[in-house]
């Protein structure tokens, strides 16, 4: 049985909204304090007001760069999710294919993607495509691995139930194994989300044209540390928003997973 959720609306708002914001405020406060107390030169570590100023100098520019990076992340992540899920389903279905393909996948994943970035420049030039490819390369492996783990971890009693009902392989797969795997699929998606952002930024840093990664490279060239920090803050915010977006979808699609775990 699940615990009765204790608390009024107020305490729910407190734990889910106020506490995280409070945590962020405290962190920013500490950062500000340190830059003042240690007399840090803004060239090395700008204080929060410096970063805000830098942002407010060119807000539309920075927001449009954020949007460009976000687009690449979303498209790449979408492709990685779809391909990753399909590959995982095929691998979970056939032992032979799994044995053949897994070493290859692991090898591809082991290659540092930073090393592949210049190659992507040669193959695809500038523009969106190499960045999106980078996002896919970086984020699809966790999705494959988690989904496979979910698909192969169906409990014995549920599998036996399906057999006793003489369910076909397909029925067992769709009605039992797929839903059982969903929590694990979301673990993979949540792990892949920050990786997707890393992938986009790697692509933009190595082949700068647009996007927050390019802004960071450019700010390095002009020694504009506050601008770099502003870009970093925007990247961090994007990452957090995406992560919680996936978490909210998970809450909606698999409300039962937390209940079983508790």
């Amino acid at each position, binding site marked *: *049985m*699940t615990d009765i959720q204790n608390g009024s609306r107020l305490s729910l708002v407190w734990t889910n909204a106020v506490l995280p914001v409070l945590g962020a405020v405290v962190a920013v406060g500490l950062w500000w304090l340190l830059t003042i107390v240690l007399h840090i030169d803004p060239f090395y570590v700008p204080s929060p007001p410096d970063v805000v100023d830098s942002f407010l100098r060119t807000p539309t520019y920075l927001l449009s760069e954020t949007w460009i990076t976000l687009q690449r992340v979303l498209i790449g992540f979408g492709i990685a999710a779809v391909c990753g899920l399909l590959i995982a389903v095929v691998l979970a279905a056939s032992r032979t294919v799994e044995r053949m393909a897994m070493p290859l996948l692991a090898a591809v994943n082991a290659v540092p993607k930073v090393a592949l970035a210049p190659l992507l420049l040669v193959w695809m030039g500038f523009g969106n495509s190499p960045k999106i490819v980078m996002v896919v390369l970086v984020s699809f492996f966790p999705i494959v691995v988690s989904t496979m783990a979910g698909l192969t971890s169906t409990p014995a*009693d*549920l599998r*036996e*139930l*399906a*057999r*006793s*009902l*003489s*369910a076909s392989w397909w*029925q067992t797969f769709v*009605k*039992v194994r797929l*839903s059982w795997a*969903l929590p694990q699929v979301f673990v993979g998606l949540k792990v892949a989300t920050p990786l997707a952002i890393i992938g986009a930024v790697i692509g933009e840093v190595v082949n700068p044209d647009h996007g927050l990664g390019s802004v960071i490279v450019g700010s390095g060239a002009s020694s504009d540390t506050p601008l770099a920090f502003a870009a970093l803050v925007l990247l961090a915010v994007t990452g957090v928003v995406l992560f919680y977006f996936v978490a909210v979808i998970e809450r909606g699609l*698999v*409300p*039962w997973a937390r*209940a*079983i775990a508790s």
Partner: protein
Amino acid sequence: MITVSAASRTFKGKSGRVEALKDINLTVGDGEFMAVIGRSGCGKSTLLRMIAGLIKPTGGEVSIAGNRVVAPRRDVAMVFQRPALLPWRSVQDNVLLPVEIFRWRRSQHYDRAQQLLEMTGLAGFRKRLPHELSGGMQQRVSLCRALIQNPKVMLMDEPFSALDALTREELAVELQRIHMELGTTIVFVTHSIQEAVLLADRVAVLSARPGQLRQIVKIDIPRPRSFGHNAHLEQVADASAALHQLLLTEVHLPNTPPATRV
């Protein structure tokens, strides 16, 4: 209804071959309630799974209604030790799972599902998820799920052993009522002498390692039987004593190697 003739089952384990069942001969009549009792490891679950068609005998054969059992049948329903409910489905949808798998028309069986849930006292819970129910209630749901198949035979593998003593008694009385109402043939595996005496027409006592049929005890107590007053306590005591004697004394069955005697 059920005929087990000279059935044996050997498993190949890591440390050699394990003879789980040896030369079992058993018949269960139409509408009869047969309990199978024995200590842990005596092969009673293996026997049940052979009747269910989940395991093939390595010797001899099992037939139901004259037809040899080669695979799980739709007119044979199984209830397991653990409820094995799909955690993402409501109680109602869990009960209707066999209907979906057999591709029967849901609309035709919807009323029957409601009826079964009412019969087991779960009418108010049909939209709840399994994790919101207690163990006893979950097991009742799995009982309803078995009954919606309108099975000729119900095979129950220690269905109440994961529950507390009071719930066990409650469900045993309920099962007796269902059996009296529906007249289904039931094979009920248990290690509780009390349950066997309450529910069964005949009790098959198995000895362990290798599992062999030691004796079949007829229980002649008139129905409905109960645990309370007017419970024919003398006859219950007699039957219980006989079963105790069979189960708790050492015995040397023919063809039992010395090292494996219990």
